[in-house]
């Protein structure tokens, strides 16, 4: 498997707090990487640094061999990076179709795409996440689950190579969560994307992830297959706790 993203020694501090400390990892093409850690471990900071919202203090991020450390978020989006947000952030005054069409227009550069073509393309992504019937509804009137799905459609419409998913399960009931997992699995299959998945629900990652990276205090605790990571002493000590399987 070819290396898609190479993160080497990134460090990010906020004042005196070290949020990410000398973290390095690779993401290979076509895999699903889980990313776990206790609250405040720096998971979201890592995603913010990788997607360009925050500048790393030191270290380097490479995508497909191109150094993207100093690129702005929109340039990274053109390179094929997309993300979803922990709390859904829709465009409240735009309809579902219009918000997906925006990312179809602005994401990775397409040849010969007019505004109307983008609208047609957006319907495809809306259909994929099951929001076709809600296409003309303003995003502020959608339910929480639909917002999550809209956000997924919006990210997929930029035609990413690598998708950062930030806690997609939070706030969903078990039925919705199952739908969401299946949808992400289908998206991975159909669009050929690589997924970097932050999640607190271990059962989800055990099922979907090929590899899990666990961090604490901004430092890497463990990395390996799901089974290796959940049996790692340091991870159990810092995050999972003994007897976690009873709750998962």
């Amino acid at each position, binding site marked *: 498997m070819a290396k898609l993203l190479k993160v080497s020694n990134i460090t990010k501090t906020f004042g005196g707090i070290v949020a990410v400390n000398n973290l390095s990892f690779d993401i290979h093409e076509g895999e699903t990487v889980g990313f776990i850690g206790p609250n405040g471990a720096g998971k979201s900071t890592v995603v913010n640094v990788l997607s*360009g919202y925050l500048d790393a203090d030191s270290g380097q991020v490479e995508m497909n061999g191109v150094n993207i450390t100093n690129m702005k978020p929109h340039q990274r989006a053109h390179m094929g990076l997309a993300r979803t947000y922990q709390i859904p*952030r829709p465009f409240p005054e735009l309809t579902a179709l219009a918000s997906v069409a925006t990312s179809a227009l*602005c*994401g990775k550069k397409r040849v010969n795409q*007019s505004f109307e073509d983008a609208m047609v393309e957006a319907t495809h992504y809306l259909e994929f996440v099951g929001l076709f019937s809600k296409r003309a509804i303003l995003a502020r009137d959608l339910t929480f689950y639909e917002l999550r799905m809209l956000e997924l459609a919006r990210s997929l419409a930029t035609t990413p190579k690598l998708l950062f998913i930030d806690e997609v399960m939070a706030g969903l009931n078990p039925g919705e969560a199952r739908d969401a997992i299946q949808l992400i699995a289908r998206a991975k299959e159909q669009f050929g994307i690589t997924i970097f998945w932050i999640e607190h629900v271990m059962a989800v990652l055990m099922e979907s992830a090929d590899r899990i990276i666990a961090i604490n205090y901004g430092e890497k605790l463990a990395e390996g297959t799901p089974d290796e990571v959940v049996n790692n002493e340091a991870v159990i000590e810092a995050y999972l706790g003994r007897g976690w399987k009873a709750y998962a």
Partner: protein
Amino acid sequence: MVDIELKRDRVTIRLKDKKWEWIIEPRYWRNSIIWVALLLVFPAVAYFISPGLINAMISANLLAAIAIPMSLMTLGTGRVNFGPNFFVGVGGYAAALLSIAYGWGPLATLPFAILITLFAALIFSPLVIVARGLYYVLLSLLLPFVFFEVTIIYTDIFKGDTGLFGIKPLLDLGNARINFLVIAYISIVIMVLFLWIINKVVKSRYGLIMAAINDDEEVAHGIGVNINKVKILSFVFSAGMIGVAGWFYAHYFSSFAGQTYLTFTFMLKIFLAMMIGGRTQIFGCVVGGYFVTFLEMILIRTMGPIQPVVFPIILIILLFALPEGLFGIYRKRRYREYFPTIHVRR
């Protein structure tokens, strides 16, 4: 190079690897044609009733011609600029000073007025990147006042205390009434042109991108919008359009004074025109412009000197009573649009 093709109901324009489609739908033209026809008939009718009415109409058209680009600026930058009259001042002073210094006519000063306004806007455009929220409001509010101070400090150039006189008039056809009539038509052409251009922009992909920026800048950045470019371009080009109104004022009255255009009262009139029609509803700006002008006419006749006090009160009442504006009522009743309503939230 540019490949234009008409197929069924749409014109397809191709340039390199880009493609634009322009859908031509005559069945939706009825309302626009009716309104433009009314606008064209109105001055001709007013010509026989009273020339004062034509004068009011010219002011209304110009107010709308400022409020329409102002809506675009508000939409594209995602911020409310509280100093649109700054660009009126820049365009007007540029036209006035050039006309007085070199004896140029209106056609010669127009390109320079636009260029100078664009340049001034470009200088101040970093504001839309560095400042947001209340800070942007304060900074943009300061611009016209600072410019007004400058005109008073350098009074030998700008004649800040008395105003500039002796600018070449816009038209001179010999007959004052016919002059008025033709000037009214010129103002209508400017307004309708702005309306048409900006409507096209708002309905195109760029309008959608601007709406996204207006809703959430960071997310728009994340999905691949070059937000700084879009914000600066919409700021600068709307400013250039507002500068045209300044050029018109200077040549229309043959005089230009910061006292009239760079003050709070004039800014309030622009805002009233923008808000009454509906926030960033560009068609509402026309309604708003006419409403404000005729309201002012009535207030001056009935109230006299306390008229400036009444204006803000009416503005506040209307903002509470009609949060969506007059055009908002129409839209709510006949909501059948495919595209979203684009509001300004900040």
